[in-house]
């Protein structure tokens, strides 16, 4: 990086910390933006240097989504708040079948937060954005007093464009439709929990955090008449299925034995009294499509590296009560209800 004449003395990114001046709008903030945010997230649109990014959207219907990230701890096996904030919003945009175009990022930093950790987080965001080819084109930085935040909170907003002929929405599930899941459940939640200060257990499980727009593009190309897509984040698969039954006015029948869960996740959940169906995922999706297209969709999903363990878990049924019912591994039936209360605070 060439020396910026405004900042003859570089930020001490090894030992330095965030202070209130980094959010005050003056030279210190400009330096933080230049030496941390622009240095890593650099792209043509960000380089415009305005309070907004100017671009011409491609033709088609646009979608927009926003997501706040408050995960604790900030770094966990398989990821950190930086890549999570990129993946989370890309996925929310992609669940409309859309191709994500751009991201915006808002940072709330706590006074005293380590610049070294901030750089690590921003570099992780940049790597995730580059890998996904979805650049962060505008941003904002605020600093709150020590004790009024928890290191860093990141809000990202994304826009994307929906291909012609694709209409995917939570209210389109119809009786007879097939329900598919892209892979094993609960990895993200268990990975984050394993690093919680008061829990700290050893596990080989890593967060599944990943950008799913490539997978979605392949699915939409093969089965453009997909009805619903949703990523089962907070509240897990159980909550996502209940959202979809509620929106579509239908019920569901799923089979417990068809739902993939890593044995290490099962073990952690047994220990902690959690149900994997309610534990958060950050790189999985639920797809609902006409039954006749299920085999083709499943084949496309299994051919993609992010969903090699995809599984057909059940079907949509007519039910005025909008219940999600599950055939248990034992052969009995039970409801899979909405999450009640708060199972795992600050998981994403």
């Amino acid at each position, binding site marked *: 990086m060439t020396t910026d004449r405004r900042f003859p003395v570089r930020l001490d990114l090894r030992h330095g910390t965030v202070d209130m001046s980094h959010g005050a709008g003056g030279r210190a903030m400009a330096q933080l933006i230049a030496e941390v945010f622009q240095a890593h997230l650099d792209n043509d649109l960000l380089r415009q240097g305005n309070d907004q990014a100017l671009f011409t959207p491609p033709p088609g219907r646009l979608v927009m989504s926003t997501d706040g990230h408050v995960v604790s701890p900030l770094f966990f096996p398989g990821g950190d708040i930086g890549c999570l904030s990129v993946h989370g919003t890309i996925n929310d945009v992609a669940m409309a079948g859309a191709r994500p175009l751009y991201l915006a990022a808002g940072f709330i930093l706590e006074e005293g937060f380590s610049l070294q950790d901030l750089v690590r987080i921003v570099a992780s965001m940049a790597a995730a954005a580059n890998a996904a080819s979805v650049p962060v084109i505008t941003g904002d930085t605020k600093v709150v007093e020590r004790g009024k935040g928890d290191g860093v909170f990141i809000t990202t907003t994304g826009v994307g464009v929906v291909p012609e002929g694709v209409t995917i929405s939570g209210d389109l599930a119809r009786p007879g439709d097939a329900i598919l899941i892209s892979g094993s459940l609960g990895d993200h939640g268990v990975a984050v929990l394993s690093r919680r200060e*008061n829990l700290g257990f050893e596990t080989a499980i890593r967060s599944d955090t990943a950008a799913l727009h490539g997978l979605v593009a392949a699915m939409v190309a093969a089965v453009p008449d997909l009805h619903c897509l949703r990523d089962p984040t907070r509240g897990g698969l159980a909550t996502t299925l209940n959202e979809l039954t509620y929106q579509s006015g239908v019920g569901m029948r799923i089979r417990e034995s068809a739902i993939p869960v890593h044995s290490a996740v099962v073990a952690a959940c047994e220990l902690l009294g959690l149900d994997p169906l309610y534990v958060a995922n950050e790189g999985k999706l639920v797809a609902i499509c006409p039954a006749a297209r299920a085999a083709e969709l499943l084949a496309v999903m299994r051919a993609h590296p992010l969903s090699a363990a995809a599984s057909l878990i059940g079907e949509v049924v007519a039910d005025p009560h909008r219940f999600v019912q599950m055939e248990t591994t034992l052969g*009995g*039936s039970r409801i899979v209800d909405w999450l009640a209360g708060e199972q795992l605070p600050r998981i994403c």
Partner: protein
Amino acid sequence: MKYIDEFRDRDLARGLAAAIAAAADPTRQYRLIEFCGGHTHAIFRYGIADLMPTNVRCIHGPGCPVCVLPMARIDHAIALATRHGVTLCTYADLMRVPAGERRTLLKAKAAGADIRMIYSTQDALRIARENPGRQVVFFAIGFETTTPPTAVAAKVAKAQGLNNFSIFCNHVLTPPALRTILATAGPQGVRLDGILGPSHVSTVIGSRSYGFVPQLFGKPVVIAGFEPLDVMQSILMLIRQLNEGRCEVENQYTRAVTPEGNRKAQALMAEVFRPRETFEWRGLGFLPDSALRLADDYANLDAERRFAVTIGEVREVKGCECPAILRGIKEPTDCKLFGTVCTPDNPMGSCMVSSEGACAAYWSYGRFREPGFRSATV
């Protein structure tokens, strides 16, 4: 997963279901009470009821420590945190349990009280060590299963001179509750033929502790593990005892329960705790020698002695049938509040919010079976 999958195996479950169907005499009813909420939840979570003949019925007992805790004790805990400004450490189960006027620990926390959710007594000790300037109270609750860890915490705190740590003790004992259920059984109380005995509690107190049940009350007991196949096998064992006219304590959960139990844990409990003369149980009333307080040697760790708290009369929500449900006399769906104003998101009684509560099991897992909820496709 090893030691889990074996006890949830579908084919073995089918085999057991067939054996139960073959053993159950169609001319009689089998009314079996499962003492523990853990069993209630296993029955609902795995859909065991679907695999049972209609004349084999499971009745849900009072073995849910959160459910039997009187509302006034939650109010007492809230008062410790709000009036005395202590750091209150609690298991997460208690956070949403309603106290009087629908107060909860969760609401008290949101209003600024320092209430921390912990996973073990060790967390509470750590918080006390890290905050020497604050009084830290551990909200101790549970049957004999969770009592030994509290005893260890008391011993550690005493040995380390952790003067800012104390225990709000709500530990209760299984045999007195079982005795009460059995003593009131019959036309006025619960009608029952046999008992699925506690699983984790029995690892501590041992299967011998239940000898009084066949001797004094003439009912068979089978100590049952918490996995679904444990529950099914225990039901089969009870049916066989009843069919053969036997009445004894049998142990299905032999991989964890011995006749004498865990002597070390028992010795810890005996050292640190003494029975209270009487203690109120939600649903069962005041039962003598049914709960524990800290022994005199540990009296300075007793939060009830350290912090004066007066709780006025606390009224149950009108219409809440938790007390009758805890005695096995009514089912959750007999309650007018069930699913109308009382749901897990908006609980009126603790049976709807506890992870071991019968109402929570009915609502969260089983309400599709109820007439008002039955749908055409089921």
